[in-house]
């Protein structure tokens, strides 16, 4: 293969990895009917938790670091679960609060890790002249697993029924609240994992604001891929490739660099508008964004 094609693919996969992981998490909780806009915040605390554990000592366990990231993401999303499922607060505003809390807390608690070395970086795997992060492989496998689980298993069907028609699921004996809480926690853990990739593998350092809007792009990606995990692979690769172009063209053209830094966000708007015009927004789970109250329609 042409070396430039390989380079493009490698970089697109790298930037696409956190997008894919976070997007899978968001698909998981949105399929259960809960929107969580706090992805950016959960990624930030995940990145910090992973870095804090891994930078402790040269022989710190990377599994523990990844576990800490997933736990941190899940813990933050637990606030969302309590607020939106138990107390039936507005899901959109709660997610926004979560994004603020997560980025704020990561910035405050992470100050002492700024500029510190990481003893224990996750090593890329080499296949010939092609390197790939274990996180990328894990993300691809998780996408396949989530797709299979949602469509082909009984518990996956239960989760989807809670997102489509919670009242009917309730009548059939499904615990709507519990299902939603678990889905939100799972989504938070995946967003935390996306953060761990950033601090352990992609940047292998800690800096405030290192998520830099990736979480928001992941949230938009969910709509773009129509809530389907396998399509999320293509979507994440597409945005990863755009980041690669940004990196390639920067400095090599007369276009000002700010155009490139704004590009992903402009493209998200274009892509969302296209999805809207094509009517894809209609693929959303029917009960998405609405709290379930027994006996209310």
């Amino acid at each position, binding site marked *: 293969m042409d070396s430039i094609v390989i380079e493009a693919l490698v970089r697109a996969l790298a930037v696409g990895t956190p997008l894919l992981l976070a997007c899978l998490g968001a698909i998981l909780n949105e399929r259960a009917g809960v929107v969580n*806009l706090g992805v950016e*915040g959960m990624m930030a605390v995940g990145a910090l938790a992973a870095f804090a554990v891994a930078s402790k000592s040269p022989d710190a366990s990377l599994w523990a670091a990844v576990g800490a990231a997933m736990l941190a993401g899940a813990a933050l999303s637990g*606030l969302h679960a*309590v*607020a939106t499922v138990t*107390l*039936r*607060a*507005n899901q*959109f*505003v*709660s997610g*926004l*609060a*979560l*994004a*603020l*809390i*997560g*980025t*704020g*807390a990561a*910035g*405050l*608690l992470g*100050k002492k890790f700024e500029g510190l070395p990481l003893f224990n970086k996750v090593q890329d795997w080499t296949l010939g002249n092609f390197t790939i992060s274990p996180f990328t492989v894990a993300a691809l496998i998780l996408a396949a697993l989530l797709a299979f689980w949602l469509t082909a298993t009984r518990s996956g069907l239960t989760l989807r029924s809670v997102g489509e028609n919670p009242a009917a699921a309730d009548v059939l004996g499904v615990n709507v609240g519990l299902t939603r809480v678990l889905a939100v926690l799972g989504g938070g853990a995946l967003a935390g994992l996306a953060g761990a990739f950033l601090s352990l593998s992609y940047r292998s350092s800690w800096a*405030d604001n290192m998520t830099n*809007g990736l979480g*928001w792009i992941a*949230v*938009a990606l969910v*709509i773009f891929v129509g809530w389907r995990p396998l399509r999320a692979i293509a979507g994440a690769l597409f945005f990863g490739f755009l980041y690669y172009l940004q990196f390639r063209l920067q400095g090599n053209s007369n276009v*000002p660099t*700010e*155009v490139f*830094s*704004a590009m992903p*966000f*402009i493209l*998200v*708007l274009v892509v*969302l*508008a296209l999805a*809207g*015009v094509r009517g894809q*927004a*209609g693929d959303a789970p029917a009960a998405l964004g609405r709290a379930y109250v027994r006996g209310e329609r």
Partner: protein
Amino acid sequence: MTAPSAARTALVTVASVVVALLICALVFVLAGQSPAEVYGTMLRGTLGDPTGLAEVGRRTIPLLLIGAGLALAFRAQFFNIGAEGQLLLGAVFAAGTALFLPIPGALLVPAVFAAGFVGGGLWALVAAALRRVNVNEILSTLMLNYIAVALVTYLIAGPWKGKDVRGYIYTDTFPQGAWLPTFSGTQVHWPTLLLGVALALGLQWLLTRSTFGYALRVVGENPGAAHYAGLSSTRVATLVALLTGGLAGLAGAGEVAGIHHRLLEASQISLGYGFTAVIVAWLARGNPALCLITAPLMGVILAGGDLLKIDLNLPFRVVDIFSGVILLCLIASEVFIRHRVKWGRA
């Protein structure tokens, strides 16, 4: 469902803010800071001395303008989270007017404000237009924030870069005629403050006494009924976007014409006013006039955040924690306004 009493609403609101401050105290303990020292520093330095009070006043101005607009937007269920970007576009339009348009003296300040309104309003209209093709306005306004930051950076580093600039990037200083007067010895630019007070009261009137306000409330509370009554929710959303974006734009014009006297980096123009104003509006329970109370309250937190940065060497992001936790507690407590708590099995 009967409307909850005002006393109950106030009680729950105050209680949720207290809970939020307790949760924030816990975060400070985790970060190895004494909450007593943190809160003490914030209060002493803001309400405890005249300079601090002026600093609160300075931050209250944009919060009041944006918060009053957002209160209206939330009542119409238009979740504009992009006030930050709308403020920046207001600042850009205001700066362009002050720097490049040959406007005679007495008209310059009104022109700067008008330009700010137009800039912010147009930026919000993009989101309103996208909403027509089912793009959620929370996402679109957020994306527009990032794009606005890039635009400001491009302008001050590129075509609008000042002649006397070394190292930092910003534009030339505005001509004196475009500077807003301030209370002496402070950075409280009173024309913008006056504008904020007048608009908060005006919007309250609009919301509760006018036909448009009625349409807005119906669209927000019962979209189905609004549709059958022939009220166009698209039209309401467009007008609300224009108004709230315009007010954020006015805030941006006030910041550059009243304080900085030039266009500079986005992070220096706004200290996250757009997000903090979301809480101003939510605390006011969607009443623009109540922002006259809630804006100074959040002004204390923003000014206090600055003190924490200087005195205790904490990152300014601390303000995000305050904002997020207060917001979360506010919306989570709403259930206690509408329902009485009954322990045991339902």
